């Protein structure tokens, strides 16, 4: 599984990334987590409100810091 956190590096993006790590740990899953910080790359997903979350190249959320529980639902 490939997870991308979209965001130019604001506090919310960092929080979302942490929550992703926590969700993966809770589920005992392994995934490559990467950050997309370049605005042009973020836009290429159609996302303008950051932070956004992309799972296997599908946008599952934008404009929100999902909680670990919510992320677990999305990736499980």
């Amino acid at each position, binding site marked *: 599984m490939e997870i991308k956190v979209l965001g*130019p590096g604001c506090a919310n993006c960092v929080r979302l990334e942490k929550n992703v790590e926590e969700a993966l740990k809770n589920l005992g899953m392994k995934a490559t987590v990467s950050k997309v910080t370049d605005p042009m790359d973020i836009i290429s997903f*159609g996302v303008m*409100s950051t932070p956004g979350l992309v799972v296997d190249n599908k946008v599952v959320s934008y404009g*929100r810091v999902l909680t670990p529980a919510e992320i677990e639902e999305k990736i499980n």
Partner: protein
Amino acid sequence: MAVFSWFNEVFLKMTWLNNFMGGIVENVFQLDSTSRIGASLQFFLYDTLKIFFLLSVLIFGISYIQSYFPPERTKKILGRYKGINASILSALLGTVTPFCSCSSIPLFIGFTGAGLPLGTTFSFLISSPLVDLASVILLASIFNWSIALAYVLVGLVLAVLGGGVIGRAGMENQVESFVYGASSIDVEEVKLSPKDRYNYSVEQVKEVIQKVWLYVLLGVGIGALIHNWIPQELITALLGQDKWYSVPLATLIGAPIYADIFGTLPIAEALLAKGVGLGTVLAFMMSVTVLSLPSLIMLKKVIKPRLMSLFVGIVVIGIFIIGFGFNEFSSVFI
């Protein structure tokens, strides 16, 4: 109407809270509430509590509405309209689309990359920080409804006309070229349940409070100072209604200040009470919110100096006109 004015007094102006705080100042702090220190303390306690309470309730309600209008959706809607209609709709949607300066760049690239005309994008960029729903209700709380509605109206007109002028100025070459290379893909809309929207709204309340509490305290502190310590003569000499330069001066003072509109409200309230003209006060608030340095610095990454000057110039002239206009006709509102 009686119900409405009762609601206004109790929930928006909260006169009972002011009286209650007067009692606290007299009985708990043992200070005369008509003395300088007592009155400052009363103003500080009352205004802080009132603003935080209103802020929490308002942000919750407004975030719930905003969760229906993410910029991704706004972009899609705007793509269907042209010309002045697009600008008007853009200004209106600006009031309900959540906006923060940290996402102004992706938003600008997204809008422009999707082929929206510059005028439409700038109408949005002016209206979004200027006419925030929460600030409108706070305006009604601090001043009155006719001022709040007039503020919305002139804010929207400024956004539509400002966008219109920029759209006609032929400044397309003043946008950094990489912006036009942006993909114009539309994201598949993520379905949100009522629970998602509720969670989002609660998060927004926490986030906004975390972001603005210091500004609010500072604003109320400065407001209390103006209220009771700075001589009225000094303030009216600088910003008095009869001084032609009061509006430009207030705009100039406001521009470099980076504060949330919630921080500026208590200052505005105190200035107005000290006899500063309504137009001057509104010019100060508009200048603080739209011309904030951080968002201008952000914007500089995607637009070239000539377009930037045009944007700032139009906004400044618009604020001047609004300021002078409100000063001239303030008797209608107060």
